[in-house]
């Protein structure tokens, strides 16, 4: 196996990619990868893209599967598990038989899912029934395009109207990012009035610094309910990029809860469109940074349908020399009469060399709208700390407790309890809480 990283330019010029993918990659390169000059990418760690081997990792062999199996968490009750290793669906590690509506897309079928003949609007992320623009698009979609050009296959989930399902999708990265990249792709279509609990995990196996560029496209039909829990707990050397696109129909309810605590650097892009009437979205996110980690998230919500509603809460803690950033951009279109948008973005600076940036943005094109936002960056409260010390609690525990308290109002919403407990354990580890988490519960 070659250890010389294959660069994007070589992939675009070579014969390894099918022609439509090659031309997409050429278009991406012509437009350029995101840079710090791009408004919504200022806080991301983009040097992770330099000198990166983008060549898709090979289909996982026995060793990669063994590594992946070793990091899988305990099964989550009621949830069928689907495991994707280095971008490849792994039936050996997944639930058998495959749950209804789950399949893998590859080859021409996959290409057909994204190749569009005419470029669409700059901000039209692809969804399962709306192919990706092959032409010019916002730079915020560039990594999604990159995934489309390079993903070996995609996991497709198609839930019929009225169905009810619970799925856990575990993405594991096992390869050294200096050699090969993981390009996982997920396409989800939730039929009318269907309900889905989706748990998405990103985990690393082995101590190599992996590179991931994940792409998730979700389409939630009329009156459907989606509860999507996202856990990014990659290893300390991982580089992670992800794009999530959502299109939500009439009266559907989408609730997202995410914890991002892993990876050396992580950038999460979410492009959410409330297209239908009275579609509702809750976006709850926790990001924990420590050491020299960089964790950046950009969430753009487009309220297009009348009565579209969003509640967004972000809680970030930047400890050590880490950087934690959250940019929440709310757009309310002309047609979104009676829309509402509420943002509560809070970050805690817990290290003298740490950096935290929270940025609410509102872009409103209609009069009849209710919009509120709050954004704060603060330090640990000295009065609270003294109160805990005065009760004999040591400093390290007092600080860990206060950090815990800071994110707990978001984390406490995670369900089911078994998953919440897993998340709380992960948070306690990250917060270096020398505390008995069970006691906090």
């Amino acid at each position, binding site marked *: 196996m070659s250890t010389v990283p294959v660069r994007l330019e070589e992939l675009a010029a070579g014969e390894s990619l099918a022609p439509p993918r090659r031309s997409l990659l050429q278009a991406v390169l012509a437009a350029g990868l995101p840079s710090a000059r791009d408004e919504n990418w200022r806080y991301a760690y983009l040097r992770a893209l330099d000198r990166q081997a983008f060549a898709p990792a090979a289909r996982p062999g026995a060793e990669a599967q063994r590594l992946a199996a070793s990091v899988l968490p305990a099964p989550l009750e009621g949830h069928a598990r689907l495991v994707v290793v280095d971008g490849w669906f792994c039936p050996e590690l997944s639930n058998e038989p495959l749950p209804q509506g789950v399949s893998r897309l590859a080859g021409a079928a996959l290409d057909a899912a994204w190749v569009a003949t005419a470029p669409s609007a700059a901000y039209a992320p692809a969804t399962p029934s709306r192919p990706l623009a092959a032409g010019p698009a916002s730079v915020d979609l560039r990594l999604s395009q990159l995934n489309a050009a390079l993903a070996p296959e995609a996991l497709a989930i198609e839930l019929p109207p009225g169905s009810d399902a619970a799925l856990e999708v575990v993405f594991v990265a096992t390869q050294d990012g200096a050699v090969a990249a993981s390009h996982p792709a997920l396409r989800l279509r939730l039929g009318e009035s269907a309900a889905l609990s989706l748990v998405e995990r990103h985990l690393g196996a082995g101590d190599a610094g992996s590179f991931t560029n994940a792409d998730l496209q979700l389409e939630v039909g009329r009156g459907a309910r989606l509860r999507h829990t996202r856990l990014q707990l990659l290893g300390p050397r991982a580089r992670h990029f992800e794009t999530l696109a959502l299109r939500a129909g009439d009266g559907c309810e989408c609730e997202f809860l995410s914890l991002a605590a892993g990876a050396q650097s992580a950038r999460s892009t979410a492009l959410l469109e409330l297209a239908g009437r009275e579609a509702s979205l809750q976006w709850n996110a926790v990001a924990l940074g420590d050491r020299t980690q960089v964790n950046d998230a950009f969430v753009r919500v487009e309220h297009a349908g009348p009565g579209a509603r969003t509640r967004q809460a972000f809680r970030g803690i930047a400890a050590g020399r880490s950087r934690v950033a959250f940019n929440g951009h709310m757009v309310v279109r002309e047609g979104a009469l009676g829309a509402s948008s509420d943002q509560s973005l809070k970050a805690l600076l817990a290290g003298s060399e740490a950096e935290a940036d929270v940025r609410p943005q509102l872009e409103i094109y209609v009069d009849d709208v209710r919009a509120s936002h709050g954004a704060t960056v603060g330090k640990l409260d000295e009065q609270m700390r003294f109160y805990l010390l005065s*009760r*004999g*609690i040591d400093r390290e525990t007092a600080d860990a407790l206060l950090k815990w*308290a800071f994110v707990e109002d978001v984390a406490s919403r995670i369900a089911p309890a078994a998953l919440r407990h897993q998340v709380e354990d992960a948070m306690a580890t990250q917060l270096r809480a020398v505390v008995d988490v069970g006691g*906090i519960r």
Partner: protein
Amino acid sequence: MSAPILSIRDLRARVGGRDVLDGLSLDVGAGEVHAIMGPNGSGKSTLAYVLAGRPGYEITAGSVTYRGEDLLKLEPEERARAGLFLGFQYPVEIPGVNNVYLLKAALNAARKHQGLPEVDAFEFLAVVREKMKLMQMDEAFLSRGVNEGFSGGEKKRNEILQMLVLEPTLALLDETDSGLDIDALKVVSRGVNTLRAPQRAIVLVTHYQRLLEHIVPDRVHVLARGRIVRSGDRDLALELERRGYDWITGAAA
């Protein structure tokens, strides 16, 4: 008299560039309850905070000896583990940190300091329930965040509950009576009185005599301009109630 639990000598402290304690001396013996009274701004709360080790107070002179040890050398958490308890005038709310968790962690920190094993979970809950009954607190408080959404009176009861569970050697209660109605005052006083013991000392910082009808002090001190200007028995408190502070603080000028 045996060696006092607390011995303060000529203590001077500054906060925000202002001398707030100006040569304060006080001895509190085992088994005693002392009341420190005085007008607003006389330095009562500063004394409580200085003893508990709150940051931001600069000790410029004097000494504080607690059970033969230099108290001022200890960090706030070490003072607490060594048996000093401060009941706050305005207990802070800490949403997200569970009340019962704090109680247990505080108790275990003190036990560890004494070389004792961690408290048994069931025994602990039994003790806490019993003390809550005494303080007429609903058990639902246990699972809530520390002081989260508590009324003023509930916060004060919670302070006393913590004190009852931790069984300190020296309890400093900073205006525990403020903001309490008469029923709550009785409950809080009963809690404090159950803690009176030969090996323990209690210092009540208060503005009003009415608390002392329920918790009868052995000694009453009047604090003015950062020092104790008069000491006496409980009759002094009654006299203050009748005559106000001016006749003493004026005399001290």
